[in-house]
Protein backbone atom coordinates (compact mmCIF):
# COMPACT_ATOMS: atom_id res chain seq x y z
CA UNK A 1 0.00 0.00 0.00
CA UNK A 2 2.73 2.44 0.97
CA UNK A 3 4.66 1.22 -2.05
CA UNK A 4 1.77 2.21 -4.29
CA UNK A 5 1.64 5.63 -2.65
CA UNK A 6 5.39 6.15 -3.11
CA UNK A 7 5.13 5.08 -6.73
CA UNK A 8 2.33 7.55 -7.31
CA UNK A 9 4.31 10.36 -5.66
CA UNK A 10 7.46 9.82 -7.72
CA UNK A 11 7.95 12.38 -10.44
CA UNK A 12 9.07 10.14 -13.30
CA UNK A 13 10.37 13.07 -15.33
CA UNK A 14 12.77 13.86 -12.48
CA UNK A 15 13.64 10.21 -11.92
CA UNK A 16 14.53 9.72 -15.59
CA UNK A 17 16.48 12.97 -15.52
CA UNK A 18 18.62 11.67 -12.65
CA UNK A 19 19.10 8.34 -14.42
CA UNK A 20 20.29 9.93 -17.66
CA UNK A 21 22.33 12.59 -15.84
CA UNK A 22 24.21 9.98 -13.80
CA UNK A 23 24.82 7.90 -16.93
CA UNK A 24 26.06 10.90 -18.94
CA UNK A 25 28.36 12.23 -16.20
CA UNK A 26 29.62 8.80 -15.15
CA UNK A 27 30.59 7.75 -18.64
CA UNK A 28 32.15 11.17 -19.30
CA UNK A 29 34.37 10.63 -16.27
CA UNK A 30 35.00 7.13 -17.61
CA UNK A 31 36.32 8.63 -20.86
CA UNK A 32 38.81 10.67 -18.82
CA UNK A 33 39.88 7.82 -16.54
CA UNK A 34 40.18 5.04 -19.12
CA UNK A 35 43.55 4.52 -20.75
CA UNK A 36 42.46 2.12 -23.48
CA UNK A 37 41.31 4.10 -26.51
CA UNK A 38 38.70 1.53 -27.51
CA UNK A 39 37.07 1.74 -24.07
CA UNK A 40 37.18 5.54 -24.30
CA UNK A 41 35.24 5.37 -27.57
CA UNK A 42 32.64 3.05 -26.00
CA UNK A 43 32.20 5.31 -22.97
CA UNK A 44 31.86 8.33 -25.24
CA UNK A 45 29.08 6.60 -27.21
CA UNK A 46 27.20 5.83 -23.98
CA UNK A 47 27.69 9.35 -22.59
CA UNK A 48 26.44 11.00 -25.78
CA UNK A 49 23.47 8.62 -25.92
CA UNK A 50 22.50 9.48 -22.34
CA UNK A 51 22.79 13.17 -23.24
CA UNK A 52 20.32 12.56 -26.07
CA UNK A 53 17.96 11.22 -23.39
CA UNK A 54 18.43 14.47 -21.46
CA UNK A 55 17.52 16.42 -24.60
CA UNK A 56 14.32 14.39 -24.97
CA UNK A 57 13.45 15.13 -21.34
CA UNK A 58 14.00 18.86 -21.91
CA UNK A 59 11.40 18.84 -24.69
CA UNK A 60 13.92 19.12 -27.55
CA UNK A 61 12.92 15.96 -29.43
CA UNK A 62 14.42 17.05 -32.72
CA UNK A 63 17.80 17.90 -31.17
CA UNK A 64 17.81 14.59 -29.31
CA UNK A 65 17.11 12.67 -32.50
CA UNK A 66 19.82 14.59 -34.35
CA UNK A 67 22.22 13.92 -31.50
CA UNK A 68 21.57 10.19 -31.85
CA UNK A 69 21.79 10.20 -35.65
CA UNK A 70 24.70 12.58 -36.27
CA UNK A 71 26.80 12.23 -33.12
CA UNK A 72 26.26 8.65 -32.05
CA UNK A 73 25.58 7.29 -35.53
CA UNK A 74 28.02 9.34 -37.58
CA UNK A 75 30.78 11.09 -35.67
CA UNK A 76 31.40 8.20 -33.32
CA UNK A 77 31.58 5.71 -36.21
CA UNK A 78 34.18 8.04 -37.73
CA UNK A 79 36.12 8.07 -34.44
CA UNK A 80 35.94 4.28 -34.11
CA UNK A 81 37.26 3.97 -37.66
CA UNK A 82 40.14 6.22 -36.62
CA UNK A 83 40.77 4.02 -33.61
CA UNK A 84 40.79 0.92 -35.80
CA UNK A 85 43.10 2.45 -38.41
CA UNK A 86 45.66 3.59 -35.83
CA UNK A 87 45.28 0.87 -33.19
CA UNK A 88 48.74 -0.63 -33.34
CA UNK A 89 49.62 -2.43 -30.12
CA UNK A 90 51.73 0.35 -28.49
CA UNK A 91 49.15 3.06 -29.14
CA UNK A 92 45.98 1.36 -27.86
CA UNK A 93 46.78 2.60 -24.38
CA UNK A 94 49.26 5.45 -23.98
CA UNK A 95 49.68 6.10 -20.27
CA UNK A 96 49.66 9.60 -18.85
CA UNK A 97 52.26 10.36 -16.21
CA UNK A 98 50.94 10.49 -12.58
CA UNK A 99 52.14 14.07 -12.13
CA UNK A 100 50.06 15.20 -15.10
CA UNK A 101 47.07 13.34 -13.66
CA UNK A 102 47.36 15.12 -10.29
CA UNK A 103 47.76 18.51 -11.97
CA UNK A 104 44.76 17.82 -14.20
CA UNK A 105 42.72 16.79 -11.16
CA UNK A 106 43.50 20.07 -9.37
CA UNK A 107 42.66 22.13 -12.46
CA UNK A 108 39.47 20.14 -13.02
CA UNK A 109 38.33 20.60 -9.42
CA UNK A 110 38.82 24.37 -9.55
CA UNK A 111 37.15 24.66 -12.96
CA UNK A 112 34.21 22.57 -11.76
CA UNK A 113 33.87 24.67 -8.61
CA UNK A 114 33.80 27.83 -10.75
CA UNK A 115 31.19 26.44 -13.13
CA UNK A 116 28.98 25.11 -10.32
CA UNK A 117 29.15 28.44 -8.54
CA UNK A 118 27.99 30.09 -11.78
CA UNK A 119 25.23 27.51 -12.23
CA UNK A 120 23.82 28.10 -8.74
CA UNK A 121 24.33 31.87 -8.75
CA UNK A 122 21.13 32.95 -10.53
CA UNK A 123 18.01 32.49 -8.45
CA UNK A 124 15.65 32.33 -11.45
CA UNK A 125 17.45 29.27 -12.83
CA UNK A 126 16.93 27.37 -9.60
CA UNK A 127 13.13 27.68 -9.64
CA UNK A 128 11.55 24.40 -10.75
CA UNK A 129 10.12 24.38 -14.22
CA UNK A 130 6.50 25.29 -14.64
CA UNK A 131 6.12 22.39 -17.04
CA UNK A 132 4.22 23.94 -19.92
CA UNK A 133 3.57 21.20 -22.41
CA UNK A 134 4.08 22.56 -25.87
CA UNK A 135 3.64 20.90 -29.26
CA UNK A 136 6.50 18.75 -30.60
CA UNK A 137 9.35 21.06 -31.50
CA UNK A 138 10.49 19.72 -34.87
CA UNK A 139 8.10 21.82 -36.98
CA UNK A 140 9.18 25.22 -35.55
CA UNK A 141 12.84 24.18 -35.89
CA UNK A 142 12.38 23.15 -39.51
CA UNK A 143 10.43 26.29 -40.37
CA UNK A 144 13.07 28.45 -38.65
CA UNK A 145 15.79 26.79 -40.71
CA UNK A 146 14.03 27.72 -43.94
CA UNK A 147 13.57 31.27 -42.68
CA UNK A 148 10.11 31.47 -41.05
CA UNK A 149 9.68 31.87 -37.30
CA UNK A 150 6.31 30.30 -36.57
CA UNK A 151 7.03 30.21 -32.83
CA UNK A 152 7.06 33.99 -32.48
CA UNK A 153 4.25 34.73 -34.89
CA UNK A 154 1.32 36.70 -33.58
CA UNK A 155 -1.56 38.75 -34.89
CA UNK A 156 0.39 41.99 -35.25
CA UNK A 157 3.63 40.36 -36.46
CA UNK A 158 3.13 37.70 -39.14
CA UNK A 159 5.67 34.86 -39.33
CA UNK A 160 7.73 36.38 -42.12
CA UNK A 161 8.66 39.51 -40.18
CA UNK A 162 11.30 38.01 -37.92
CA UNK A 163 14.17 36.55 -39.81
CA UNK A 164 14.87 32.85 -39.42
CA UNK A 165 18.07 30.94 -39.83
CA UNK A 166 18.25 30.61 -43.61
CA UNK A 167 21.61 32.38 -43.97
CA UNK A 168 23.37 30.48 -41.13
CA UNK A 169 21.88 27.28 -42.52
CA UNK A 170 23.39 27.96 -45.95
CA UNK A 171 26.73 28.97 -44.46
CA UNK A 172 26.88 25.81 -42.37
CA UNK A 173 25.94 23.59 -45.31
CA UNK A 174 28.61 25.10 -47.57
CA UNK A 175 31.08 24.88 -44.68
CA UNK A 176 30.26 21.19 -44.23
CA UNK A 177 30.77 20.56 -47.94
CA UNK A 178 34.13 22.35 -48.02
CA UNK A 179 35.27 20.63 -44.84
CA UNK A 180 34.36 17.16 -46.09
CA UNK A 181 36.10 17.75 -49.43
CA UNK A 182 39.15 18.96 -47.49
CA UNK A 183 39.05 15.94 -45.19
CA UNK A 184 38.87 13.58 -48.14
CA UNK A 185 41.83 15.40 -49.72
CA UNK A 186 43.86 15.22 -46.50
CA UNK A 187 43.15 11.56 -45.83
CA UNK A 188 43.51 10.30 -49.39
CA UNK A 189 45.83 7.37 -50.08
CA UNK A 190 49.07 8.86 -51.32
CA UNK A 191 50.80 7.25 -54.28
CA UNK A 192 54.46 6.72 -53.57
CA UNK A 193 56.47 9.02 -55.82
CA UNK A 194 58.65 7.13 -58.29
CA UNK A 195 62.22 8.48 -58.12
CA UNK A 196 63.40 10.20 -61.25
CA UNK A 197 66.30 8.81 -63.31
CA UNK A 198 68.85 11.41 -62.19
CA UNK A 199 68.15 10.66 -58.49
CA UNK A 200 68.53 6.94 -59.18
CA UNK A 201 71.88 7.63 -60.86
CA UNK A 202 73.02 9.80 -57.93
CA UNK A 203 72.04 7.19 -55.39
CA UNK A 204 73.95 4.39 -57.15
CA UNK A 205 77.05 6.49 -57.99
CA UNK A 206 79.32 6.62 -54.88
CA UNK A 207 81.53 9.27 -56.45
CA UNK A 208 78.56 11.60 -56.89
CA UNK A 209 77.57 11.03 -53.27
CA UNK A 210 81.06 11.99 -51.96
CA UNK A 211 81.07 15.07 -54.23
CA UNK A 212 77.70 16.11 -52.78
CA UNK A 213 78.96 15.65 -49.23
CA UNK A 214 82.06 17.68 -49.96
CA UNK A 215 79.93 20.48 -51.43
CA UNK A 216 77.74 20.50 -48.31
CA UNK A 217 80.76 20.64 -46.02
CA UNK A 218 82.31 23.46 -48.05
CA UNK A 219 79.14 25.53 -47.98
CA UNK A 220 78.87 24.95 -44.22
CA UNK A 221 82.46 26.13 -43.77
CA UNK A 222 81.77 29.19 -45.92
CA UNK A 223 78.70 30.02 -43.86
CA UNK A 224 80.71 29.69 -40.65
CA UNK A 225 83.50 31.85 -42.01
CA UNK A 226 81.21 34.63 -43.14
CA UNK A 227 79.70 34.72 -39.66
Amino acid at each position, binding site marked *: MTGCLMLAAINFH*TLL*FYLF*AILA*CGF*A*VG*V*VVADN*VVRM*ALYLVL*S*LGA*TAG*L*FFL*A*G*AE*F*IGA*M*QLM*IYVGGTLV*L*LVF*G*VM*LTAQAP*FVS*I*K*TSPGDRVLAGV*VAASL*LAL*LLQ*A*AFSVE*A*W*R*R*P*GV*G*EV*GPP*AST*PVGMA*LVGVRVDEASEEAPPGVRSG*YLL*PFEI*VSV*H*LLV*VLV*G*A*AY*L*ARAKRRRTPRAIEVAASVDPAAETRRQARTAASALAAGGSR
Partner: protein
Amino acid sequence: MSGMLGSTAAIVGPMFAATTADVSVTHYLVVGAILFTAGIVCMAVKRNALGVLMGIELVLNGANVNFVAFASPYLRGQGAPALGLDGQVIALFVILLAAAEAAVALAITLNFYNNHSTVDVDRADDLKG
Protein backbone atom coordinates in the same frame (compact mmCIF):
# COMPACT_ATOMS: atom_id res chain seq x y z
CA MET B 1 17.68 -4.61 12.30
CA SER B 2 15.93 -1.35 13.11
CA GLY B 3 19.26 0.49 12.86
CA MET B 4 19.78 -0.85 9.37
CA LEU B 5 16.24 0.13 8.48
CA GLY B 6 16.85 3.61 9.86
CA SER B 7 20.06 4.08 7.88
CA THR B 8 18.35 2.83 4.73
CA ALA B 9 15.57 5.34 5.31
CA ALA B 10 18.17 8.04 5.89
CA ILE B 11 19.67 7.29 2.47
CA VAL B 12 16.46 6.61 0.57
CA GLY B 13 14.51 9.49 2.11
CA PRO B 14 16.46 12.38 0.53
CA MET B 15 16.71 10.46 -2.74
CA PHE B 16 12.95 10.00 -2.72
CA ALA B 17 12.45 13.65 -1.88
CA ALA B 18 14.75 14.58 -4.77
CA THR B 19 12.72 12.52 -7.22
CA THR B 20 9.47 14.23 -6.29
CA ALA B 21 10.77 17.74 -7.02
CA ASP B 22 10.67 19.25 -10.48
CA VAL B 23 13.80 19.62 -12.60
CA SER B 24 15.10 23.17 -13.01
CA VAL B 25 17.60 24.73 -15.38
CA THR B 26 20.30 24.44 -12.70
CA HIS B 27 20.10 20.65 -12.82
CA TYR B 28 20.99 20.73 -16.49
CA LEU B 29 23.69 23.33 -15.91
CA VAL B 30 25.37 21.02 -13.38
CA VAL B 31 25.35 18.16 -15.90
CA GLY B 32 26.76 20.49 -18.55
CA ALA B 33 29.49 21.68 -16.17
CA ILE B 34 30.56 18.11 -15.40
CA LEU B 35 30.63 17.16 -19.09
CA PHE B 36 32.60 20.32 -19.92
CA THR B 37 35.15 19.71 -17.16
CA ALA B 38 35.58 16.07 -18.19
CA GLY B 39 36.17 17.18 -21.76
CA ILE B 40 38.72 19.83 -20.79
CA VAL B 41 40.66 17.33 -18.66
CA CYS B 42 40.46 14.77 -21.47
CA MET B 43 41.89 17.30 -23.94
CA ALA B 44 44.69 18.25 -21.56
CA VAL B 45 45.68 14.84 -20.26
CA LYS B 46 45.30 12.35 -23.12
CA ARG B 47 48.38 11.68 -25.19
CA ASN B 48 46.49 9.79 -27.87
CA ALA B 49 45.33 12.21 -30.57
CA LEU B 50 41.98 10.44 -30.78
CA GLY B 51 41.57 10.89 -27.01
CA VAL B 52 42.03 14.64 -27.48
CA LEU B 53 39.33 14.51 -30.17
CA MET B 54 36.95 12.75 -27.79
CA GLY B 55 37.61 15.50 -25.23
CA ILE B 56 36.56 18.10 -27.78
CA GLU B 57 33.34 16.18 -28.44
CA LEU B 58 32.60 16.14 -24.70
CA VAL B 59 33.17 19.90 -24.39
CA LEU B 60 30.83 20.65 -27.30
CA ASN B 61 28.28 18.29 -25.83
CA GLY B 62 28.39 20.02 -22.46
CA ALA B 63 27.78 23.37 -24.16
CA ASN B 64 24.85 21.81 -26.03
CA VAL B 65 23.28 20.64 -22.78
CA ASN B 66 23.32 24.24 -21.56
CA PHE B 67 21.81 25.58 -24.79
CA VAL B 68 18.99 23.03 -24.74
CA ALA B 69 18.31 23.66 -21.04
CA PHE B 70 17.97 27.41 -21.57
CA ALA B 71 15.80 26.83 -24.63
CA SER B 72 13.44 24.38 -22.96
CA PRO B 73 9.87 25.48 -22.25
CA TYR B 74 9.54 22.74 -19.60
CA LEU B 75 12.41 23.85 -17.40
CA ARG B 76 11.72 27.57 -17.42
CA GLY B 77 10.81 28.74 -13.94
CA GLN B 78 8.25 31.44 -13.23
CA GLY B 79 9.51 34.71 -14.66
CA ALA B 80 12.84 33.36 -15.89
CA PRO B 81 13.99 34.42 -19.36
CA ALA B 82 14.34 31.69 -21.98
CA LEU B 83 16.18 31.38 -25.25
CA GLY B 84 13.25 29.69 -26.95
CA LEU B 85 13.90 28.26 -30.37
CA ASP B 86 17.26 30.04 -30.71
CA GLY B 87 18.90 27.68 -28.25
CA GLN B 88 17.69 24.57 -30.04
CA VAL B 89 18.86 25.80 -33.44
CA ILE B 90 22.26 26.79 -32.03
CA ALA B 91 22.56 23.31 -30.52
CA LEU B 92 21.81 21.86 -33.96
CA PHE B 93 24.54 24.01 -35.56
CA VAL B 94 26.98 22.93 -32.84
CA ILE B 95 26.27 19.27 -33.60
CA LEU B 96 26.87 19.89 -37.33
CA LEU B 97 30.11 21.78 -36.74
CA ALA B 98 31.28 19.04 -34.36
CA ALA B 99 30.75 16.50 -37.13
CA ALA B 100 32.75 18.64 -39.58
CA GLU B 101 35.50 19.18 -37.03
CA ALA B 102 35.72 15.46 -36.28
CA ALA B 103 36.11 14.66 -39.97
CA VAL B 104 38.96 17.14 -40.48
CA ALA B 105 40.71 16.25 -37.23
CA LEU B 106 40.52 12.56 -38.05
CA ALA B 107 42.03 13.22 -41.49
CA ILE B 108 44.87 15.17 -39.86
CA THR B 109 45.41 12.39 -37.34
CA LEU B 110 45.59 9.77 -40.10
CA ASN B 111 48.05 11.95 -42.00
CA PHE B 112 50.17 12.33 -38.86
CA TYR B 113 50.02 8.58 -38.32
CA ASN B 114 51.14 7.92 -41.89
CA ASN B 115 54.08 10.30 -41.56
CA HIS B 116 55.24 9.55 -38.01
CA SER B 117 53.87 6.03 -37.38
CA THR B 118 52.43 7.15 -34.04
CA VAL B 119 49.35 8.92 -32.64
CA ASP B 120 51.14 10.27 -29.56
CA VAL B 121 50.64 14.04 -29.62
CA ASP B 122 53.81 14.55 -27.57
CA ARG B 123 55.77 13.32 -30.59
CA ALA B 124 54.27 16.00 -32.83
CA ASP B 125 57.02 18.54 -32.15
CA ASP B 126 58.32 19.09 -35.67
CA LEU B 127 57.36 22.76 -35.55
CA LYS B 128 59.17 23.39 -32.28
CA GLY B 129 61.66 26.19 -32.78
